């Protein structure tokens, strides 16, 4: 079942990081400085390069979808209107979508449907979040309130805790080890080190990760994604417009989405995410692709355990073998499997909630067209997969992208 042809024709991606202050970097002799900004300037930083890349002006953008996961982070309501106004898409349909950490990809799938329906020809999906201006405890609170307030949150189940429940179960059932969890973080930080737009560009060793401070055991600091500010934009167009405006359109050939039970206790097991399995199945089916066709993948690694489950749920390795596959360098560019999160993932690149799912697609575009930094460029990548998860599988979107 092929889906209506819609393409990514423009990309933009801000520097991720603590963007409330000036950032100065000097890595391997390459110096860079980034100004202190708010959600407004972050939106600019990702949007204007995207329309320039698409070779269009605001006149051509017919509507927008804005991804912001929690307005409380920025303290600004009706933020979709603010962002659309800031970048100059004024007097045209806009809206905000929210599916927790999968908010960015939901903005893309919402724009996709509006284009595929024939309503609009060219749209912008803009994701932005500033999370570093509140205390870490409050940021954790804002993410943890997504637990069921009748049966989960009041017993102290924070957001990292949900994933630690999976980690402990997977250790008991599948023999997942501490070293295997750490191996994920080592990989993320290795590639993130070479990504100029990543938040934390620092290589990490297995020992660093094994010995890091506990957050919610079995998970420790390096098992957890960063709290970041950032923005990302993609411009989407229907077939006719895409072919006209772009010499390098990246087609959304597969689109899958699913959800899962609200409560962790209603899941049939705690060793994988059913929402990911169902969304991947839908995405593969619509594209006619399977896991073995994927050349580069972006999976939702809010926690190391999440990345390991994703390897299995997306079919990159056998069920129960995600930890082993990591140790065997399955997800490395020069490994035997599929290169995964060669942008640094949520752990090194960062996780500004509303931007994350769009940022994955932006990097997929670079990989497919060969414009990523050379140390993290996958040779001859053609078929990309992006996998973005909200909460612990309550919202999942999977895209297959091809030139």
């Amino acid at each position, binding site marked *: 079942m092929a889906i209506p042809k819609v393409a990514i024709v423009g990309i933009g991606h801000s520097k991720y990081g603590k963007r409330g202050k000036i950032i100065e970097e000097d890595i391997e002799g390459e110096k860079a400085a980034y100004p202190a900004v708010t959600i407004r300037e972050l939106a600019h930083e990702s949007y204007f390069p995207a329309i320039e890349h698409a070779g269009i002006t605001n006149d051509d953008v017919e509507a927008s979808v804005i991804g912001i996961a929690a307005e409380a982070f920025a303290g600004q309501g009706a933020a979709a209107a603010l962002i659309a106004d800031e970048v100059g898409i004024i007097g045209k349909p806009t809206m905000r979508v929210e599916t927790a950490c999968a908010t960015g990809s939901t903005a893309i799938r919402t724009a996709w449907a509006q284009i595929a329906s024939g309503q609009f020809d060219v749209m912008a999906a803009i994701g932005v979040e500033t999370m570093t201006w509140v205390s870490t405890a409050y940021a954790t609170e804002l993410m943890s309130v997504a637990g069921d307030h009748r049966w989960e*949150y009041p*017993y102290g189940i924070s957001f990292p805790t949900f994933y630690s429940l999976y980690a402990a179960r997977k250790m008991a059932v599948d023999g997942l080890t501490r070293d295997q969890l750490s191996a994920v973080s080592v990989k993320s930080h290795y590639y993130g080190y070479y990504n100029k737009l990543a938040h934390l560009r620092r290589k990490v060793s297995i020992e660093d990760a094994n010995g890091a401070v506990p957050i919610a055991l079995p998970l420790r600091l390096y098992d957890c994604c960063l709290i970041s500010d950032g923005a990302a934009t993609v411009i989407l167009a229907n077939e006719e417009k895409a072919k006209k405006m772009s010499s390098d359109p990246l087609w959304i050939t597969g689109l899958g989405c699913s959800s899962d039970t609200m409560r962790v*206790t209603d899941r049939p097991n705690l060793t994988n995410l059913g929402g990911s399995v169902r969304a991947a199945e839908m995405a593969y089916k619509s594209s006619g692709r399977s896991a073995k066709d994927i050349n580069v993948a972006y999976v939702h690694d809010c926690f190391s355990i999440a990345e390991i489950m994703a390897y299995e749920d997306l079919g990159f390795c056998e069920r129960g073998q995600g930890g082993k596959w990591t140790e065997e360098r399955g997800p490395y560019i020069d490994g035997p499997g599929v290169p995964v999160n060669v942008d640094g993932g949520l752990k090194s690149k960062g996780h500004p909630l509303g931007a994350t799912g769009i940022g994955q697609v932006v990097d997929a575009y670079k990989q497919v067209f060969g414009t990523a930094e050379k140390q993290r460029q996958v040779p001859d990548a053609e078929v990309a997969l992006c996998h973005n998860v909200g909460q612990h599988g309550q919202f999942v979107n999977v895209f297959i992208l091809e030139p």
Partner: protein
Amino acid sequence: MSEPQLGLVQELSTDVKHRQRMTAEFRKFINGLKEGKFLATECKSCGKKFMPPRFTCPCGGKDLKWFEVNPEGTLYTWSIVHFAPEGIAKKTNVPYAVGVIEFEDNLLLTGHLKGLTSKPKVGMKVKIEPQELDSGDLAYFIKPA
């Protein structure tokens, strides 16, 4: 703040978050525990059992009956929380332990694991008990059986 009181119904009347608990299913469950009954529901249409209890079934069934569950179960999975969200951190010390317990009929429930911050182990025997909170409200905790 010595012994964590997770269950956190202390602010029931003022904290909007706890309004989520102000309904018949939650009260019946908690009051059952107080009377020594550990209750779940079962859909009369499709037979599916629900812990925590539901009053409607995804099958469309709206006729569900309460039934008693053995309060002893096994630890299905666990976590030891060293960094709590702000709303919890205000009310309890870290670290504290939480877990998912498996009762009969594969029924799972999340809860606070009392006295288990050092060595929780998947498969160990545990038991659910009612917990009287400082506020006088009632919640529950999990302890080794």
